[in-house]
């Protein structure tokens, strides 16, 4: 299994390399002269030339890439064009609120989604199934911003149970935005778990378990459930990327001091160093989460564990 882990670990190196190239090339791929764009349209030629020198853009591209990688390794992501503050500091300020949001959203949506999906499979064709899948279809179809606004209206404004928006570090502030963020994922997980579970229920080893006289409850939760989880785990990794993307909308609705909103602002003013850094950050997270998923996958599947 250690060999498998090492293999997976090594296999992400080329992915990270390609991602870093893309992030580096990002500025160069945009139309026009990056130095000109950064200096602004009304800057004179001398200023642009100075900026170009300062940013090392007069040197050959491979050298620029190496410098860029070296800076990145030391945590130097450049300075924000807008605030002139180091991008690293700017991001760290907003990093944890977004991660709390994503992790909470993921956690509850996986738990609820898998339980709903499993229940729908166990009670296939009965009211539990239809209820779970009705909720699931709603979860997929309702846009996040609207769901967020509805939730604020009901739980914050009308009932007054939870704060309306913003984040100061209290758990109660996390509930509504993470619920909104996770709703779609929960719905996707429910549908996916249902189909995986139903497929497993058709397997011969389920008949074997029943033929042994295993109680129906254990047939479902011991024999079927764990097998059904294997494809679901893969799905979790893919959905995490969706959650990070979704945080842009949710953070805007809930005035959340996170990376998603920061990114929208950066796009608005073409703050290239910030966007470059965020591109890297998002990609790295996605890659590492999927690495983690692969490892969990190996832990629950003996066929890989004993390879």
């Amino acid at each position, binding site marked *: 299994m250690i060999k498998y882990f090492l293999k997976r670990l090594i296999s992400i190196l080329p992915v990270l390399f390609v991602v870093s190239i893309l992030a580096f090339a990002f500025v160069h791929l945009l139309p026009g002269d990056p130095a000109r764009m950064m200096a602004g349209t009304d800057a004179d030629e001398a200023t642009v030339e100075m900026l170009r020198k300062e940013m090392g853009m007069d040197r050959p591209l491979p050298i620029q890439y190496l410098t860029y990688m070296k800076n990145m390794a030391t945590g130097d992501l450049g300075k924000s064009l807008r605030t002139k503050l180091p991008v690293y500091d700017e991001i760290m300020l907003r990093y944890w609120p977004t991660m709390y949001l994503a992790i909470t959203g993921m956690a509850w949506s996986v738990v609820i989604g898998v339980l709903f999906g499993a229940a729908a499979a166990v009670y296939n064709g009965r009211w539990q199934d239809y209820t779970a899948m009705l909720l699931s279809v709603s979860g997929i179809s309702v846009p996040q911003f609207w769901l967020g606004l509805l939730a604020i209206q009901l739980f914050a404004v009308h009932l007054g149970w939870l704060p309306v928006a913003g984040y100061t570090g209290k758990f109660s502030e996390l509930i509504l935005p993470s619920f909104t963020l996770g709703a779609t994922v929960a719905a996707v997980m429910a549908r996916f778990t249902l189909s995986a579970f139903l497929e497993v229920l058709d397997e*011969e080893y389920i*008949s074997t378990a029943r033929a042994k006289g295993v109680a129906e409850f254990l047939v479902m939760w011991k024999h079927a459930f764990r097998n059904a989880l294997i494809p679901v785990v893969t799905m979790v990794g893919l959905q995490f990327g969706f959650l990070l993307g979704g945080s842009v909308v949710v953070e805007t609705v809930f005035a959340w001091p996170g990376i998603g909103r920061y990114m929208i602002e950066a796009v608005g003013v073409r703050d290239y160093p910030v966007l470059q850094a965020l591109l890297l950050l998002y990609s790295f997270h996605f890659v590492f989460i999927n690495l983690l998923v692969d490892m969990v996958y190996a832990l629950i599947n003996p*066929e890989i564990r004993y390879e």
Partner: protein
Amino acid sequence: MNSSVETQLAMADDEILSVRDLSLSFPGYNGFTKVVHDVSMTVKKGETLAIVGESGSGKTVTMRRVMHLLSRVRTDSGQILLKKRNKVIQDITTLSNSEAKKIRGADMSMIFQEPMTSLNPLFTIGNQLMEAIHIHQKISRAKAEKKAIDLLNIVRIPDAKRRLSEYPHQMSGGMRQRVMTAMALSSHPQLLIADEPTTALDVTIQAQILALIRSLQKEFSMSVVFITHDMGVVAELADRVIVMYQGRVVEHNDVQSIFSNPGHPYTRALLKAVPVLGSMTGRKNPATLAILEMEKELSRKETDELPAEKEIDTADYGAPPLLEVSHLTTRFVSKKSFLGKPTHLIHAVEDVGFKLFPGETLGIVGESGCGKSTAGFSILKLVPAKGEVLFQGENVMMVSDSKLQSLRQDIQFIFQDPFASLNPRQTIGASIAEPLIIHAIGDKGSREKRVAKLLERVGIPAAHASHYPHEFSGGQRQRIAIARALATNPKVIIADEAVSALDVSIQATVLNLMMELQKELNLSYMFISHDMAVIERVSHRVMVMYLGQVVETGSRRDIFENPGHPYTRKLLSAIPVADPSKRTCFNMLTGEIPSPVRPFGNPPEKLVLKEVTAGHFVADGPADSQADIGIG
């Protein structure tokens, strides 16, 4: 309870199971469809009842209902009476799920067909065995573990203690079926239901499992219900036989009478359809089977004339060989080191050579992993292979890709699974026309005519060209696959287990079709199969493969009437013969088919073929082949 109910539940003293007028329906889009009609049967103490029938005959459904394993099926009428161990008679049809689970695994157990999927991949063998023990016996963990080891010993699994911590994927199919059997025996049931338990296994492994079930039955004086489609297995094992057809019991008799004096036309047709090993003894050429399609066979009157066996005398050994293969070697990488260097190779095909003459059928036979299918693929470079393959004098291994493409017109494939080898989104007409389009033969009009002609020839109305594969049965699909293979007028057809997935009666008519086509079109077949009886029926010459190498090759009569290699003899002796008066004495060894995976740089020893009589070659060794296959 009043007395009338009690008399209803009465069973004869020696009966364990009594199914009475059972009718079952499955839910479908148009309401319920009846799949089992008024089925009655009894199983006596200590006897083996075989239920024979083709797919869809209702044999599995009936027995799964007996086990109370079907949730969606509706029981329309009838009773299923089981005499429990405490002598209480129970009607299974009146049981709830939670009541049924106390009986399942305790009073009766079941073994399933697919050893690869019938054990849960996430739990160890020990865990699954001990689970079965704990359900019905309140004993300590240590005792249960000891019992699990005992059970594995009973089913002759060597090194039982270590096996407990293994996962199913670490075991071979035969070993898994032993574990399944051990699990079924864990609470000493009185009734064991075995649903085609050996169908997915190789013949030598099948022989081991059959011997095991037979001896366990004696040891535990168990009753066994054996569901099968294989008349050979029936003859080997059964005391009494029930024949089912389209959800009905059509015949019920003791095993001797079923074979010597079959009463129902269906039973007679079934027996005629089975290629019997040895039936070709003394005959030079293969011949078609004297059988019609099942519907025609059933409506045939006693006085009607039977179709005659047609001798297939097309092989032309005077002509130069169409295909001349030498030193064919195919190896796949099985394991790689950390840096991606191969450490283990699968030696699928090792230095194989043979010739195929015009109009000839070369049967290639062997067990799983012997390389017979890979040899077929290698010839058309569908897998990376080395060696020399001369097709009409041209070396297939050396030609350019475009030339190879045109050679592929002349050599066509038919695969095993007719459900997977036709594209479900394409009409069958389009599927058949596709090779013509690929090789740019004819225009649209002429292609349509050709498709119609081909369909008619394989016995499917030309008007069905616009239908999709799911509208056809397995046998019809295999006919369509044959029509597709014929589309480009090939000279050679490689048939890879082409009839293995079909029911026997359909298998017989597809074999007949293939042989008739050979006669009409002077085709050459490379007929790859694990089934010795089918090989005997269709082949002019036979090649026996073992671990990637040829161990024996010769004319059909050489191989079947005078087998020279110990492995050939073992294969022949492992086959259940469809004649209950000639029961084989399988011994109880547990040998496995050895693996063709070897460490890198350590190729197997090359076998030297010696010519014993003209055209009959037998390999010297391998010496260990006797030890590792469990048939004496």
